[in-house]
């Protein structure tokens, strides 16, 4: 556990991706095999089932720290992370241990079936034996959510560095529902497997946001236009009658979307398409909220498949009949895509094409962009007719031309202290809109102001508190802010009846009085039926 605690310390101390990968690679070279396997499992969200509730964790931690529970709760609120709070409040002791990460993980698995008294004894003893970073890591094994800037992708890269096995092949090896109890490091990672190579994706080609007037791109006839769909960018591979689905983060997500399995029967062998994975409830494109219900889910139930099916809206073909066609012009590749769509016609597959449009003038293109929200897209994609499929984010041949965010003027009604550096400032705000003569909460936002503005608003909150609810302060409605957001959908879970996506503060409308803020009806008018 010492080495793992030290690894977490190093990962935590730097914000440089390269250094994180380097530290992790070194760990993967030096740690004993069972610890490596557990590290991979933990960083790919395969932690042991939580043996105790967070309520008990809090109670026992406050006891171990010799502080009242309410004081622990206050500290937790300000620190913002349970595992970290526990690690911070427990006093350092001189006792120690010589157990490995795998030992502790095994302990936690066994703990699951013990009674409460045994669990408590185990945790209190263990907390005392661990140093700060070990204790933090240990708590994270219990609570989950390491958030140390190591995605599965980066972990795979580090593992590739340490083992000299190709990164994409490792990504394939790591997929599926293995656990450290059902396999070994040797079996999972080191053993050669012919199949590994079949899954290999191509790097995605990503576009920059358009940073100039579109007319400056030259002759409009040289460009193809498509709507920019708001789902998950994905690559679908069919080779040897097997399907592999990769997401933009280059994570293998085949298991999560069983409805695509059917493509293996219809796609020619050696087909790779690039497209947008979209929710498709009731035979039309759903909201990102719908897709969320699929993304997080490990267990894909029949009910969920019926309620929120997904489709792929295809943009491009990267491999056609086993041949890498990325160097061929976009137009040619779209020809292959049309052939594929023809092959699959009338088979009722979850495969749709992202239609290509051509315009005679840039003004006509701009008009189509205005229509984006109506067709549930985020704007337009501009692709040069003769562009090859490049690697990574590149300027020149492809551009995204997004619509401007939606905005609304709302009133600040509640404030909460921020976390971390901002713990002594009120920086987490709740905003409301008018509903007749009442202000109704519609969104929370905590970014978009400068430090100086946050300090000013903080001052306002401290001087204009009308009520306190735990950490939340109700303030005199007086300040108006322009709130921007990307999407909007009806919602039963929200008091306002509306859910907005990515709300953030655009600017402080010091020029506006609260009477001039928008109403809930103004907001609802932005929903596209």
């Amino acid at each position: 556990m010492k080495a793992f605690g030290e690894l977490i310390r190093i990962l935590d101390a730097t914000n440089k991706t390269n250094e994180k990968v380097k530290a992790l690679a070194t760990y993967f070279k030096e740690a004993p095999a069972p610890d490596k396997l557990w590290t991979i499992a933990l960083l790919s969200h395969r932690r042991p089932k939580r043996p105790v509730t967070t309520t008990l964790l809090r109670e026992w931690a406050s006891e171990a720290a010799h502080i009242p529970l309410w004081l622990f709760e206050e500290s937790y609120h300000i620190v913002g992370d349970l595992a970290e709070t526990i690690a911070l409040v427990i006093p350092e002791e001189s006792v120690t241990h010589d157990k490995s990460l795998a030992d502790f993980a095994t302990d936690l698995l066994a703990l699951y079936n013990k009674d409460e008294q045994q669990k408590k004894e185990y945790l209190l003893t263990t907390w005392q034996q661990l140093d700060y970073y070990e204790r933090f890591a240990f708590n994270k094994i219990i609570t989950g959510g390491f958030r140390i800037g190591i995605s599965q992708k980066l972990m795979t890269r580090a593992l590739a560095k340490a083992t000299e096995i190709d990164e994409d092949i490792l990504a394939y090896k790591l997929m599926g529902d293995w656990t450290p109890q059902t396999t070994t490091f040797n079996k999972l990672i080191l053993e050669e497997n012919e199949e590994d190579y079949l899954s290999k994706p191509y790097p995605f080609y990503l576009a920059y946001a358009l940073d100039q007037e579109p007319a400056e791109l030259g002759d409009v006839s040289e460009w193809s236009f498509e709507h920019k769909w708001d789902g998950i960018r994905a690559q679908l591979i069919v080779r040897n009658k097997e399907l592999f689905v990769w997401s933009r983060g280059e994570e293998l997500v085949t298991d999560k979307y069983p409805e695509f399995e059917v493509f293996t029967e219809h796609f020619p062998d050696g087909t790779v398409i690039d497209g947008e994975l979209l929710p498709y409830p009731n035979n039309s494109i759903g909201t990102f909220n719908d897709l969320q219900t699929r993304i997080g889910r490990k267990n894909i139930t029949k009910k969920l498949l019926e309620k929120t099916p997904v489709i792929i809206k295809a943009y491009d073909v990267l491999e056609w009949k086993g041949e890498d066609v990325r160097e061929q012009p976009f137009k040619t590749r779209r020809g292959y895509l049309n052939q594929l769509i023809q092959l699959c016609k009338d088979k009722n597959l979850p495969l749709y094409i992202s239609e290509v449009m051509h315009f005679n003038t840039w003004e006509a293109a701009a008009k189509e962009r205005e229509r984006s929200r109506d067709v549930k897209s985020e704007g337009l994609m501009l692709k040069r007719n003769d562009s090859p499929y490049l690697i990574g984010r590149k300027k020149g041949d492809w551009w995204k031309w997004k619509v401007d965010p939606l905005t609304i003027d709302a009133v600040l009604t509640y404030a909460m202290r921020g976390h971390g550096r901002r713990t002594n400032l009120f920086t987490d705000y709740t905003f409301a809109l008018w509903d007749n003569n009442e202000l109704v909460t519609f969104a929370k936002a905590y970014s978009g102001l400068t430090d100086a503005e946050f300090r000013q608003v903080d001052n306002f909150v401290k001087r204009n508190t009308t009520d306190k609810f735990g950490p939340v302060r109700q303030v005199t409605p007086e300040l108006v802010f322009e709130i921007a957001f990307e999407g909007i959908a009806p919602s039963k879970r929200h008091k306002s009846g509306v859910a907005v996506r990515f709300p953030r503060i655009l600017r402080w409308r010091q020029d506006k009085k609260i009477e001039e803020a928008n109403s809930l009806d103004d907001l609802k008018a932005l929903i596209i039926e």
Partner: protein
Amino acid sequence: MKTPLLQFTEKGIYCQQANVYLDPWKKVDNALITHGHADHSRWGHKKYITQHDNVPIIKHRLGAIEATGVNYNEKIIINNVTFSFHPAGHIPGSSQIRVAHKGDVWVFTGDYKLHPDGLSVPYEPVKCNSFITECTFGLPAFKWRPQQEVFNDINEWWKTNKAEGKTSVLFGYSLGKAQRLIKNLDTSIGTIYTHAAVENLNEVIRPHFSLPDTVRITADTDKKAIAGNIIIAPPSAHGTPWLRRFAPFVTATASGWMAFRGARRRRAVDRGFVLSDHCDWNELLTAIKETGCEKVITTHGYTDVFSKYLQTLGYDARTEQTQYEGENAETNEENEVTS
């Protein structure tokens, strides 16, 4: 009910009997000043009384003011009230102020820390009945590691950067934190370069406190000579063209707030070192116990939480609103100094 010896008024902490204020935030005639940070020593009072070492510091910050210096433990009697300054260990020239009248003894801490930092005169507990204490870090989640361990990390960080051909840039408030960093760096690794705001204060402090040699960065400073060495600069220098010309470099901040992972991540610096000039949780509790006081008044920081906890320990504890701002004020001050 008789008027308490010290009252919280809209101008500051006031002793009516002697007609003086302690660290007032509005203009008054007579101000007793604990230390030189902007939220404790403000401009515009008629007369300032403070510990000797703090006189040049507040004169540097506030310009032509009428300031009188006194020694630690020296008694000043005004209309039968006895005032004295005692080391607070916060920054060079920082004091607690003891106020006594007919057996009623109050102590106002200003800002303070218990563990010696190798530079400022270490904190000394002062017995009292009523203790007015800051509690900037008054939560059990704040526990400082021994200073030597932190400096081992800082020096190790500097060494690594140097080996990679990079300059180290360490941010700390130009009054107090900067000098503490300078004092404790391992100068066998390289040369310490300073931002003008820091060096100006070094010059003010050097006659009374021994500091290692530092080199002021000017327009003529040779960029190449700095490579691999360390620059001490105020946080406000972060992201400025002034700093950019020293690339390639690695940045770090030293502050108590760095105790939280979220804070470390949100700061756009490469590294956060947990180093504070304020008391941590245990220091606060120790300090209160050592004064033998019955009454505690908490000022800046997590005041409500902290005084509520003190009540559970049996103290007569309450919170008073002040305009002291803890480590934030010190950051604001940097903005003033450099802009």
